[in-house]
């Protein structure tokens, strides 16, 4: 009888398991009640709950169900590139092609990645761990997961949750920084209406981009190739079925496995460590500096440019598509309700995705 009782999960429960259950419930609550990244937080929360049920061995190497999802989905680099295929099929590069100089704002907003990278090193993390923490500043979930799985898989739960949390907190984190770094007059700057972009330009763009980026940073190829393939599906107009599948059904399917696999890495022994707090702290530093760098770079460009840029669109360079662009629109409209910045901000916003993938490629090439 005692032997039988000892085989139940209940007697093997630890305080750590119970704390992780509370975290799981919190994530599920935030997703359902507050609508914070529900597509990710529901499966992540459930994965955390499942992996912290004692004696279920869901993450046992070679046998556990969730281990198989994690191993074949994330360790084999399958899921993040498929998400990028879907993102490509959803992304309109038109505003960026129409005003290409906004691309540079997407580059500037990657500065926070490197500030957090050094911050993490100063806090005692090694270089592969610091790379995984720094990339949170790109505000791009799949890229963060892709980088962390390669360089510091033991931090996957923390970096993925930090990245998605900060992405959902864009409307709270960014506006104070945007107001602090801009004057009322700057926030009122009206930008010239964007020219229409031809279909041919939109078709050529993914072909040129994949060649340019992969020739410069080959390690970024898995994400960049799939991103641009998805975009070519969308823009060529002859493979609507593939484009729709990539953007909807396929992306939804892999999102389920991404979420539950990330949650499954968050066992009590993996997650309840002081270093997780530092990961969140450095993630916030990365995100804040990226926002600030984008705005300051826009102000710098204004010193030389004939046609002024509204510096509020610089903060959209952190990726977090399209949330960051929407925040630029909202803060701009508060200064002048007749100022429509959304389409202008989409340029740096999608450029930020490309910039983050390049930064991740360099981390993977040199930081491993």
């Amino acid at each position, binding site marked *: 009888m005692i032997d039988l009782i000892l085989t139940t999960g209940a007697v093997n429960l630890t305080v750590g398991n119970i704390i992780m259950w509370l975290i799981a419930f919190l994530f599920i609550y935030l997703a359902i009640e507050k609508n914070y990244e529900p597509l990710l937080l529901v499966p992540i929360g459930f994965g955390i709950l499942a992996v912290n049920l004692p004696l279920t061995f869901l993450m046992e190497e070679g046998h556990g169900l969730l281990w198989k999802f994690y191993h074949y989905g994330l360790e084999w680099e399958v899921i993040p590139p498929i998400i990028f295929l879907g993102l490509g099929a959803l992304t309109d590069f038109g505003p960026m092609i129409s005003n290409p100089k906004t691309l540079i704002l997407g580059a500037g907003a990657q500065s926070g990645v490197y500030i957090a990278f050094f911050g993490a090193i100063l806090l005692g993390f090694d270089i592969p761990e610091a790379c995984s923490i720094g990339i949170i500043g790109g505000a791009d979930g799949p890229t963060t997961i892709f980088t962390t799985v390669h360089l510091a898989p033991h931090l996957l739960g923390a970096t993925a949750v930090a990245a998605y949390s900060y992405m959902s907190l864009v409307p709270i984190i960014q506006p104070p920084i945007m107001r602090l770094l801009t004057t009322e007059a700057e926030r009122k700057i009206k930008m010239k209406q964007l020219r229409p972009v031809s279909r041919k330009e939109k078709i050529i763009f993914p072909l040129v981009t994949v060649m340019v980026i992969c020739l410069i940073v080959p390690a970024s190829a898995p994400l960049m190739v799939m991103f641009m393939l998805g975009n070519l599906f969308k823009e060529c107009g002859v493979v609507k079925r593939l484009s729709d599948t990539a953007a909807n059904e396929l992306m939804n399917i892999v999102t389920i496995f991404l979420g539950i696999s990330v949650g499954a890495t968050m066992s009590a022994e993996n997650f309840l460590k002081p270093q997780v707090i530092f990961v969140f702290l450095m993630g916030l530093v990365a995100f804040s500096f990226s926002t600030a760098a984008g705005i300051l770079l826009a102000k710098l460009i204004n010193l030389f440019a004939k046609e002024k840029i509204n510096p509020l669109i610089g903060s959209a360079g952190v990726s977090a598509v399209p949330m960051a662009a929407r925040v630029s629109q909202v803060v701009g409209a508060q200064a002048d309700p007749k100022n429509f910045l959304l389409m202008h901000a989409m340029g740096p916003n999608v450029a930020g995705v490309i910039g983050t993938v390049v*930064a991740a490629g360099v981390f993977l090439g040199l930081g491993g």
Partner: protein
Amino acid sequence: MVEWSLAIKICVFGLSAVFVSLAILIASIYVFGVILKNLEKNTTKKAG
């Protein structure tokens, strides 16, 4: 022991790669924009 030389190399190369690749993309967008415009002009002339 942190390898500071590697950390600095990653930072310098990383930031340069981001700026250079996006700058080349900007240039490419302008170039293929001009090429497409010229092609369209020629096509219109021929049709005319």
